[in-house]
C-alpha cells in the first residue's frame, strides 16, 4: 500500500527502540527514554493538559468527574427521538409546506377536511421516522454489543474480575489478554514480556495491518502479576485533555515521588488489538467518548446525488407553477366576487364573511390564495421523498444481497453504506483509482531472480501469458476477453515459435502464497551445484536478513508467517524459506535463520547480530542492514532500486552489472517489480569509526538531524558488490484482468494500473512533486485540460492530500460524477472528496470502508456495482421521479381546471378521501415497485454490453428533455381526463333511467380515469414484470374499486354514498368513459416509444429487441460482433503491455518489428 506520511511516522514508532536509524523529530529524546523530562512536564497542568488520573485509586478518582466507558453512537435517545426526528423531517422544504397546509387545514380557509391534509403527512413523516428509528436502533444494538464486552479489571487486593467495558472508569487497572481489543485508552504498565514491550495491531484505527511495538516505562516493569497491584496506589498521571490526535500523547507519570515523561509509546489505544503478547496490564486514561478513536470518529460527509439535487430544482419549479396557478385562481376569485357574487342571490352575498366579501375582493382574494395553495398542493408529490427513501433502502438491500458480489474468501458482501447514492453509481464519468491493493492484490509473488548474471525462474508473468495466449489464438484485435485466457488454461505450454516458450498452467496457482518461483536449479539445495554457489548463498542471506519483518509462529502447525512492512518483503522471506533459509526469530539485537543446505550436517540455526539498520524511505530508495555473523565478520547488506544500487557499486562489484541490467529490463517488460541486491564486507575498524559518527548524528538535536543521518548513512552504503536482482509480481486482483471489460463501460477509456515503469502506457504520468506544481491555481486548469485529453492519467507518489486535491480538481473541473476507489487509510481523503467513494474491504483495514459510501471486497466487483446496479438504480430512480411528477401534474391540474368552472371558489370535484388516498395508497406501490424491480435489460446483458452504461453519464433518462416530456405528458393527461369527462357528462342523462350525473358522479368518474391512466402509464413504462409489479399495478386499480365500494357503504361519503353500486356501476357510459380516457391518455406515450424505437432507438431498445428476437446461431455471431464493436482499440496498462509484448515477440521473429515501447520514466 502506498505509504506516505503516515507510514513513515509509523515506521519511526515501530523501530524507535529496536534499531538505530530513525528520525525522531520530537523533543522527548528517544522513545522509552525514561526519567523526568522537564520540557514535557512544563506543559502538563497547563490549559489543555488538565487531566489527572489516580491509578488504581477509585476513591480519589471519583472526585474527578470523567465519563464512564459507556459509548453511544446513536443519533437519538428515547426522549429526544420525537422532537429531533420531527425536526429533521421538517427541514425538507416540501415537508414544511405540507406541515403548513396541515396547520392551515384547521382554519376555514382550507378547501378540505383537516384529516385529509394531516393523514398523508402523518403517514409520510411517520414512515420516514420509522426508518430513522430502525437505523438508530441498529446502532444502539451495535453499541450495546461493544459496551458489554468484558475485560479483567483490578477490583482490589490483587484480584481481577471480569466486567463489562461500559463499567470501566478512569484510573482502573485492567488486564488485557492476547487478541483482545483494548477497552479504553490505556497506559501500558507491563506485559508478559520481561522488557515490557507488547505488539499492537491498529487496523481499526488507521487501517494498517502490521504490528506496532509499544513499550512500558521501566519503573512500572515490576508490576507484572496480579498480586503486585495490591500496593500500587500512589501513581498519578497528569496528561493532556482528550483529543483526536492518534499519534501524539503528552503527560507525566508520578510514581514514588518521581516524575516520568509519557509519550505515545506507552499508550494503548481503544479499538486496537493486542497481538503476539499473552497479556498486558494497563491503567485507563481516557474512557468512552474521551478515547482517541471516539474523538476521531467523524460522520462521513453526507452526499446527495445529482438526480436528487435536480429533483429539488424541479420541486421548486413545481412550487412556482403552484404559486402561479394559485395566483390566477385567487385573482379569478376576487374578480368573480367583485363582479358576480352580488348577483348570485342563492349564495346570500349579503350575509358573507370575510372569506368571500364582495365589498372587499382584495382581502378575500388573499385568503383565497392560501386556499388555492393548499388545494393545488397535489402538484407537489408529498410521498416522493419517502418513496425514494424507501426505494433506495430496498435497492441498497439488493446490492448488499447480490450473490455475485460475495467474496468467498472473506465472506464479505458488497455493502451500500449509504443508500443516498445508488443512482449516482449509474452516472459515473470518471473513476479515480488507487492502485495497490485496489487494482492489484498487493500480494507479491516471488517469480524470478537474477543471481550472478544468471536468470533463474521459468514461470511467466500474467503479461507474458496473456501475450502468449493472444499470439497463439492469432487474435490481434482482442476479441477474446482477457478473462477467458485464465479460464482456458488447459494447455500447459503454448509453443509460439521455436525457442520462445511460455509455460502456462500449473505454476499459475502457486501452492505457496507469495512464491511462484519455478526453477529446479535453485530448489532443494541444488543451487550448491551451480557455478556461483557462494554468490547464490549471499543472495539468499540478503533475502533472509535484510528486512524489518517479525516472524509469527503459528503454534498449531509450527509454520511461520511474517509480519512484514511490505508485501515485497514478505515475498522475499517466503522465497528465502523455500530456498532453505528460514528466518524464524528476531530479538532486539539479533536475527536467527535456520539454514538447510549450507552445511553437510543438515539444518543449522545461525544467529546474526544486527549492528545497524538503515531504514528504507522513499527518498533513499534503499535499505541496509549491518550485521555480524557467527564468525565475527561484519557484513553490510543493501537492497534497493537498481539505479540507486548501481550508482554505489564498487569497481570490483560490477562483475554482473551488464547481465543483471539486461535481466532487469526483461523483468520490467514482463510487468514485474524489481530490486537489486548487493553486499559489502566491512573491517572492524572501519565500522567502529563510522558507527561513532552515526551515533553522534543520531543523538544530535536540531532540524538538520535527519540530514545528518542521511549523510552518514550515505558514507557507509558505498563500494557495494552486486549480487543479483529479484523480480516479484504484484498480482492483479482476480477480475482486474477484466480491465478491458471495465474499459468498455467507458467505451474508450481505460482502467489503468501503474507499472513501476509505465513504458507502454500511453498515459500521462505525473508524480507527486510535479503534481504539487500542477495543482497550483494557475496551472491546474491546464493540467486538467491535458488530463482530459489523455486517455488516462497516472499520478504516482502522491500524498493523500494530493489525491483529494486531484479528485476535487476533476470533480469541479469536469463537472461530472466522479468515483474514487481505494482501500487504505491514505485513500480516505479522495473517497470523501469524490461524488462516490468506494472502499475495498479486506486486508488494509476499515478506514477506507468507514469513509466510503459503498464497500466491496474486491476490485472486480466494481464492474458489477456500476454496470449492473448503478445502471439499474439510475434508471429506476430517474423514471420513478419523472413518473411522480407526471402523475401529480396529471392529477393536480384537473383540480385547477375545475376551479375555472366553479367560479374559482376552491371547491374540489373530488371527495377529500380520494385525494388523500391518491398519493399514499392508490398510486404509490406501483411506482415503488418500478423503483425497486425495474430492469431494462438483465444483469448479464448489462455486463455484456457495457455501452449501455453510457446512458447514465450522459444522463439520458433525467435530462430536461425527458423531464419536460414527462411533465408535458402529465399536462396532456390532465387535459384529456378533465375535458373528455366534461364533455361526456356535460348535461345529458347517464342512464337509461334518465338520471343526470351530479358532481360526485363526475368526480368519481374522473378519478377512476386518473387511476387507470396513471397505472396504465406505469405499466407501459415498466419493461420488467414480475408478479410483484402485476400485483401492485392491477392491485392499485382494484383497490380503488374496492375502496369506492367500501366507502359507498358509509354515510360519511355524502354524495358518494353507494355511488358505484347504484349510480355509476350500472351506467355503461361510466365504463366507456374510463376506457376512452385511459386510452387517450396513453396514446402520446405509445406514439413516442414507437417512434423512438423505429427511428431513433436507444441502445437498450436494440438489445431488448435482439434478446426478444434472438435466434441461436445467427445471433451468436451478431452478439459477438456487437461485443467486439463495443470494445475499444486503445489499450492502456495491462492490455497495452500485452500488445507490447506481442509486438516485441513478433519483432524478434521478424527481425524488423518496430518496438513501440516508449520509455517515459526510468
Amino acid at each position, binding site marked *: 500500500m502506498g505509504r506516505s506520511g503516515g507510514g513513515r511516522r509509523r515506521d519511526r514508532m515501530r523501530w524507535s527502540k529496536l534499531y538505530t536509524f530513525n528520525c525522531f523529530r520530537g523533543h522527548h529524546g528517544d522513545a522509552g527514554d525514561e526519567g523526568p523530562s522537564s520540557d514535557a512536564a512544563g506543559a502538563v497542568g497547563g490549559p489543555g493538559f488538565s487531566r489527572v488520573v489516580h491509578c488504581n485509586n477509585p476513591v480519589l478518582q471519583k472526585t474527578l468527574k470523567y465519563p464512564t466507558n459507556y459509548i453511544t453512537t446513536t443519533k437519538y435517545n428515547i426522549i429526544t427521538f420525537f422532537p429531533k426526528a420531527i425536526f429533521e423531517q421538517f427541514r425538507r422544504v416540501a415537508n414544511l409546506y405540507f406541515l403548513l397546509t396541515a396547520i392551515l387545514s384547521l382554519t376555514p380557509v382550507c378547501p378540505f377536511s383537516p384529516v385529509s391534509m394531516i393523514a398523508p403527512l402523518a403517514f409520510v413523516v411517520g414512515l420516514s421516522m420509522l426508518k430513522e428509528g430502525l437505523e438508530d436502533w441498529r446502532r444502539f444494538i451495535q453499541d450495546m454489543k461493544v459496551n458489554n464486552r468484558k475485560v479483567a479489571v483490578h477490583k482490589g487486593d490483587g484480584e481481577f474480575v471480569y466486567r463489562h467495558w461500559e463499567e470501566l472508569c478512569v484510573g482502573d487497572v485492567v488486564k488485557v489478554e492476547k487478541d483482545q481489543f483494548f477497552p479504553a485508552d490505556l497506559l501500558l504498565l507491563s506485559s508478559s514480556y520481561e522488557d515490557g514491550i507488547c505488539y499492537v495491531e491498529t487496523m481499526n484505527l488507521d487501517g494498517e495491518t502490521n504490528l506496532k511495538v509499544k513499550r512500558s516505562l521501566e519503573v512500572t516493569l515490576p508490576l507484572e502479576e496480579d498480586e503486585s497491584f495490591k500496593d500500587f496506589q500512589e501513581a498519578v498521571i497528569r496528561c493532556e485533555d482528550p483529543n483526536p490526535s492518534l499519534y501524539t500523547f503528552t503527560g507525566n507519570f508520578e510514581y514514588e515521588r518521581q516524575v516520568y515523561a509519557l509519550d505515545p509509546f506507552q499508550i494503548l489505544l481503544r479499538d486496537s488489538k493486542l497481538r503476539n503478547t499473552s497479556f498486558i496490564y494497563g491503567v485507563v486514561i481516557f474512557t468512552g467518548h474521551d478515547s482517541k478513536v471516539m474523538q476521531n470518529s467523524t460522520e462521513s460527509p453526507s452526499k446527495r446525488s445529482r438526480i436528487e439535487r435536480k429533483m429539488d430544482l424541479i420541486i421548486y419549479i413545481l412550487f412556482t407553477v403552484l404559486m402561479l396557478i394559485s395566483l390566477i385562481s385567487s385573482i379569478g376569485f376576487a374578480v368573480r366576487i367583485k363582479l358576480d357574487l352580488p348577483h348570485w342571490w342563492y349564495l346570500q352575498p349579503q350575509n358573507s364573511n370575510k372569506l368571500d366579501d364582495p365589498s372587499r375582493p382584495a382581502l378575500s382574494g388573499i385568503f383565497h390564495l392560501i386556499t388555492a395553495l393548499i388545494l393545488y398542493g397535489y402538484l407537489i408529490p408529498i410521498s416522493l421523498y419517502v418513496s425514494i427513501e424507501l426505494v433506495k433502502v430496498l435497492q441498497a438491500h439488493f446490492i448488499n444481497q447480490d450473490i455475485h458480489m460475495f467474496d468467498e474468501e472473506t465472506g464479505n458482501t458488497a455493502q451500500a453504506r449509504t443508500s443516498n447514492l445508488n443512482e449516482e453509481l449509474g452516472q459515473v464519468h470518471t473513476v479515480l483509482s488507487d492502485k495497490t491493493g485496489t487494482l492489484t492484490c498487493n500480494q507479491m509473488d516471488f517469480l524470478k531472480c537474477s543471481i550472478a548474471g544468471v536468470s533463474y525462474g521459468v514461470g511467466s508473468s500474467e503479461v507474458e501469458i496473456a501475450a502468449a495466449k493472444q499470439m497463439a489464438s492469432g487474435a490481434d484485435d482482442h476479441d477474446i476477453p482477457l478473462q477467458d485466457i485464465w479460464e482456458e488454461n488447459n494447455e500447459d505450454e503454448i509453443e509460439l515459435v521455436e525457442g520462445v516458450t511460455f509455460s502456462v498452467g500449473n505454476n499459475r496457482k502457486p501452492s505457496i502464497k507469495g512464491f511462484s518461483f519455478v526453477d529446479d536449479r535453485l530448489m532443494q539445495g541444488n543451487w550448491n551445484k551451480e557455478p556461483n554457489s557462494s554468490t547464490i548463498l549471499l543472495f539468499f542471506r540478503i533475502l533472509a536478513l535484510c528486512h524489518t519483518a517479525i516472524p509469527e509462529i503459528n503454534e498449531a502447525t509450527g509454520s511461520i508467517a511474517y509480519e512484514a512492512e511490505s508485501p515485497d518483503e514478505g515475498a522475499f522471506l517466503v522465497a528465502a524459506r523455500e530456498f532453505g533459509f528460514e528466518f524464524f526469530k528476531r530479538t532486539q539485537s539479533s536475527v536467527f535463520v535456520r539454514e538447510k543446505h549450507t552445511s553437510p550436517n543438515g539444518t543449522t540455526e545461525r544467529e546474526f547480530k544486527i549492528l545497524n539498520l538503515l531504514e528504507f524511505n522513499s527518498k533513499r530508495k534503499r535499505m541496509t542492514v549491518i550485521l555480524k555473523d557467527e564468525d565475527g565478520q561484519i557484513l553490510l547488506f543493501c537492497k534497493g532500486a537498481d539505479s540507486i544500487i548501481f550508482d554505489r557499486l564498487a569497481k570490483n562489484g560490477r562483475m554482473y552489472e551488464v547481465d543483471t541490467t539486461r535481466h532487469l529490463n526483461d523483468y520490467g517488460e514482463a510487468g514485474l517489480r524489481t530490486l537489486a541486491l548487493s553486499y559489502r564486507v566491512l573491517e572492524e575498524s572501519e565500522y567502529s569509526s563510522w558507527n561513532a559518527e552515526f551515533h553522534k548524528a543520531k543523538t544530535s538535536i536540531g532540524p538538520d538531524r535527519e540530514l545528518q543521518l542521511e549523510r552518514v548513512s550515505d558514507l557507509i552504503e558505498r563500494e557495494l558488490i552486486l549480487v543479483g536482482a529479484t523480480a516479484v509480481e504484484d498480482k492483479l486482483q482476480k477480475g482486474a484482468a477484466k480491465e478491458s471489460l471495465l474499459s468498455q463501460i467507458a*467505451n474508450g477509456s481505460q482502467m489503468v494500473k501503474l507499472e513501476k515503469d509505465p513504458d507502454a502506457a500511453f498515459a500521462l504520468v505525473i508524480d507527486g512533486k510535479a503534481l504539487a506544481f500542477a495543482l497550483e491555481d494557475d496551472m491546474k486548469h491546464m493540467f486538467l485540460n491535458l488530463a482530459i485529453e489523455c486517455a488516462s492519467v497516472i499520478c504516482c507518489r502522491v500524498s493523500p492530500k494530493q489525491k483529494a486535491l486531484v479528485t476535487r480538481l476533476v470533480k469541479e473541473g469536469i463537472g461530472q460524477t466522479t468515483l474514487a476507489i481505494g482501500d487504505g487509510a491514505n485513500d480516505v481523503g479522495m473517497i470523501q472528496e469524490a461524488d462516490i467513494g468506494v472502499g475495498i474491504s479486506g486486508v488494509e483495514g476499515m478506514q477506507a470502508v468507514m469513509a466510503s459510501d459503498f464497500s466491496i471486497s474486491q476490485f472486480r466487483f466494481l464492474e458489477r456495482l456500476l454496470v449492473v446496479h448503478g445502471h439499474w438504480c439510475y434508471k429506476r430512480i430517474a423514471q420513478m421521479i419523472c413518473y411522480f411528477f407526471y402523475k401529480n401534474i396529471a392529477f393536480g391540474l384537473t383540480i385547477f381546471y375545475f376551479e375555472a368552472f366553479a367560479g374559482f371558489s376552491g371547491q374540489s370535484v373530488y371527495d377529500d378521501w380520494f385525494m388523500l388516498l391518491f398519493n399514499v395508497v392508490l398510486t404509490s406501490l406501483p411506482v415503488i415497485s418500478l423503483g425497486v424491480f425495474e430492469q431494462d435489460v438483465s444483469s448479464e446483458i448489462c455486463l455484456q454490453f457495457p455501452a449501455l452504461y453510457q446512458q447514465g453519464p450522459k444522463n439520458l433518462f433525467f435530462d430536461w428533455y425527458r423531464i419536460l416530456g414527462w411533465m408535458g405528458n402529465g399536462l396532456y393527461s390532465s387535459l384529456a381526463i378533465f375535458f373528455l369527462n366534461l364533455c361526456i357528462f356535460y348535461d345529458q342523462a347517464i342512464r337509461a333511467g334518465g338520471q343526470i350525473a351530479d358532481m360526485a358522479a363526475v368526480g368519481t368518474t374522473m378519478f377512476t380515469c386518473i387511476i387507470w391512466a396513471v397505472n396504465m402509464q406505469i405499466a407501459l413504462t415498466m419493461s420488467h414484470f414480475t408478479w410483484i409489479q402485476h400485483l401492485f399495478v392491477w392491485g392499485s386499480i382494484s383497490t380503488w374499486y374496492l375502496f369506492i365500494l367500501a366507502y359507498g357503504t358509509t354515510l360519511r361519503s355524502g354524495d358518494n354514498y353507494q355511488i358505484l353500486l347504484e349510480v355509476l356501476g350500472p351506467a355503461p357510459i361510466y365504463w366507456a368513459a374510463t376506457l376512452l380516457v385511459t386510452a387517450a391518455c396513453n396514446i402520446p406515450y405509445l406514439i413516442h416509444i414507437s417512434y423512438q424505437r423505429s427511428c431513433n432507438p436507444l441502445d437498450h431498445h436494440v438489445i431488448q429487441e435482439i434478446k426478444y428476437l434472438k435466434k441461436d446461431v445467427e445471433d451468436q455471431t451478431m452478439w459477438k460482433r456487437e461485443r467486439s464493436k463495443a470494445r475499444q482499440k486503445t489499450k492502456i496498462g495491462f492490455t497495452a503491455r500485452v500488445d507490447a509484448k506481442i509486438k516485441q515477440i513478433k519483432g524478434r521473429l521478424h527481425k524488423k518489428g518496430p518496438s513501440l515501447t516508449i520509455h517515459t520514466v526510468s
Partner: protein
Amino acid sequence: VVSVFFIVGVIFVPVGVVSLLAARDVVEIIDRYDEACVPGNMTNNKLAYIQNETISKVCIRNLTITKAMKQPIFVYYELDNFYQNHRRYVKSRNDAQLRDRRKANQTSACEPEKTTANGQPIVPCGLIAWSLFNDTYSFTRGSENLTVDKKDISWKSDREHKFGKDVYPSNFQNGALKGGATLEPTIPLSEQEDLIVWMRTAALPTFRKLYGRIYFDLKVNDTITVRLNNNYNTYSFGGKKKLVLSTATWLGGKNDFLGFAYLIVGGLCIFLAFAFTLLYFIKPRLVTFNSSLLQSAWKVISCVLDIHVTF
C-alpha cells in the same frame, strides 16, 4: 406496439359506432322560456318582474314534437350560469340533520342559513335547500292531460338512507330572505324528491335536473301545451332556464361526443398502426449501436502512490 395500436383501433371504432347510433336514437326537445315568459312590458326590468309577488308567473308554452318519442319521456329543467358547484354553496348543508330527526339541531356548516332569527334550527338548513328550484310544469296534448310522474326521480339510496323518513321540514323559508321553493311540512324529506334531486349539486354551472317522467308516446307533429309557473329567479345573474323533454337509451341521453371521441381515437390508432408498419418497411432499421456512443471517452485517472519498495 404497432399491434397495440391496431387492437385499440379495432376495439374503439365499433364502440364508437354503437355509441353514436345510440345517441342518434335519442329525441330531445329543448325550450328556453326565461325570456319568453316575461311579460312584454317588463322585458327591461326582469328582476322587478320576478321579485314582484303580485304578478302572476303562469306562462303557457307550446311545443311541437319533431320526431316520435317513445315513453318514458324525461322532463328536465336546465339552468345556466348557476354555480351549484361554488364552494360556499356546496359546503352549506348538513347531512346528519337530513338523515336523523334527533339531529335537527346540527346545523354546522349551514352558514348562512342555519337558524331562524330567534335561533330555531332550520330543517333542511343551508343554502342548497334554501335555494330549491320552484318552477313547475304541467303538460297537455290537446285536451289530454300528460301527467308527470315525479316518483323515483332521485336515487333510491338517497331516499332510503340520506333523507330521513321521519324528518319533516321545519322553519324552512321562514326567514326574511326568501330563497326558492317552500316545502310541505307534513311530507317527510325522504319523499321530497325535488329537494333530493336538487341537493345533488351539479358539477358545472350549466346543468339539468330531472323533473319527472311522462309515460306517453308522443308522435311527430304532436303539439304539447306546457303550463308553467315561472317562479325561479335566474334574472338577477342572467341565467337561462330551459325545459327539456328527452328520451334515453342504454347509454343515456343525446350525447354524440362519446361516439365521436371513440371513433377519433380508434381511427387514430389504426392510422398509427399503418404508419408505423409502413415506416418499418420503408426504413428498416439496422440493429446496431449508435456509433457515437462507442466513441465517448470515460476518463480514468489512476491515483497511484509510491509503494514502499517501488523505487
